[in-house]
């Protein structure tokens, strides 16, 4: 069995999840705290990427990230490489596609935190940032776990966007979901079953471990 696509998928899912947590956290925090009239608008906009079919979203991303596109041309100027058909491009596309799955659980967790806990941290000498990491984050662990799980799993299973932006190039953008897809398309069921099973077992044990750890840690 060719382990390459699985490995690539795991890398992609890992990097994407990491980026989403890092970038999604401030966004989710802003959404949870804002009293602005724009809050609901931004919140709805964040949910938009999932409304489009992946292939269609992939198509639009292909245009934007391509060497002639807004972001793509800027990237070419900056790095000399094209963004599409590269790992970096895949990460950007996956991030956009999975953004709402990361932001919503974190936002919910932040919103259900009572503000007095934060105030207690401030008066104990914690700056806003310090209080965020020492109080908000641990008390919102559930939200982070959900965000990680949904973003990670979703990126593993992603397909349309990756195929469009990445181009199914072995070793570069041929992720495991595409590999399974190809096995199914070519009626090579045995290989498809095998790869699916490996993927599912892999994902299962990662998620199971995560839930288990999360449960231990959870304050009751």
């Amino acid at each position, binding site marked *: 069995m060719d382990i390459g696509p699985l490995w690539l998928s795991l890398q992609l899912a890992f990097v994407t999840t990491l980026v989403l947590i890092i970038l999604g956290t401030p966004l989710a925090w802003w959404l949870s705290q804002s009293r602005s009239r724009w809050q609901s608008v931004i919140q709805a906009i964040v949910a938009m990427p999932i409304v489009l079919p992946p292939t269609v979203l992939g198509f639009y991303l292909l245009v934007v990230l391509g060497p002639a596109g807004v972001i793509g041309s800027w990237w070419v100027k900056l790095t000399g490489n094209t963004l599409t058909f590269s790992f970096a491009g895949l990460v950007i596309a996956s991030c956009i596609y999975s953004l709402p799955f990361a932001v919503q659980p974190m936002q919910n967790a932040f919103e259900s935190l009572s503000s*007095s*806990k934060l*105030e*207690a*941290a*401030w*008066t*104990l*000498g*914690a*700056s*806003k940032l*310090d*209080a965020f990491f*020492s*109080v908000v984050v*641990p*008390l919102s*662990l559930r939200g982070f776990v959900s965000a990680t799980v949904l973003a990670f799993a979703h990126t593993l299973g992603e397909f349309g966007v990756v195929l469009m932006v990445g181009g199914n190039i072995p070793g570069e953008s041929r992720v495991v979901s595409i590999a399974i897809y190809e096995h199914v398309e070519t009626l090579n069921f045995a290989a498809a079953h095998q790869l699916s099973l490996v993927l599912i077992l892999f994902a299962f044990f990662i998620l199971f471990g995560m839930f288990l750890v999360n449960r231990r*840690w959870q*304050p*009751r």
Partner: protein
Amino acid sequence: MNNVEMKYSLQKGDFKLEVDTRIPATGITGVFGESGSGKTTLLRCIAGLEALTDEDSRPPHKRRIGYVFQDSELFPHLTVQKNLEYGWRRNPDARRPITEFASMLEVDQLLDRSVSDLSGGEAQRVCIARVLCQEPQLILMDEPLSALDARRRNNVLPYLDRLHSETSVPIIYVSHNIDEICRLSDHLILLDNGKVVAEGGLQETLARIDLPQFRGQNAGAVLEANQSRYDAEFDLSLFQFLGGELWVPGCQDMRTTRLRIDAGDISLSRTSVKSSTILNILPAVIDEMIAETASTQLVRLRLGTNFLVARITRRSLHELNLQVDDNVFAQIKSVTVRY
């Protein structure tokens, strides 16, 4: 002695807090007032937790103000120990080990506990200890003892006393319990419906029998006194103050202390007869009288420069025919001492 300016104006729904006063920068300032009078709101303003009310533009964490919240706001994801360490770690000037404060508040047995396994009173003690560990420059306490039983309250109170005498950390202490206020505060602010209705040194303010807040169970007075003698045989101490002296049980090693005498613990007589177990009979002059209820009268007594407040029935007033400026003897049954 410096002053701290408190100038806040804040609208919250129908409620308006409007405070413009100065409090001493040392000692304990008591904030007394009934439920809904704005005590918590005032503390929040001082801590910087209410926006736009403050000329001090520093964020809360730079103010080095410790805040004991009305509902214990412990961090549920941390053990008791880690809760105590939270503020302590964040203050580079905190010198004393947390175990010191933990044992003072009798939470040293609980250090490894999860916060959710504490009883109501235990949680409150951990809260107080947490703020003490932080060694702040000003401590705000919002009814910190209301969840404690009498014994632990009495254990904590003297520590709070000592705290400010040793470290000179000023404390603003909110309570609706006049006993706590009397034992702890040097200065008193009386809040009513968001306004300061009386303010000043504890003794003068408490002796104002014209204030409705200081009637009923809250009527009484406070004396600052020095120990002048100790009777080892009966474990009694004699305390002197400007205007008289008082025998008080115990108190062997106390130099200066504050004595609280409830209005209900004083009876008046024309003569000084010593035939009962009442130890203390002091000569005094009637300074002011005011009707408290249909049946009772509050009487302010002058003893030198000090005041006492006595509650007597109107019948006794009538029978003894007491008048302002009369000389009387105050028989004092119990005295509460700030141990």
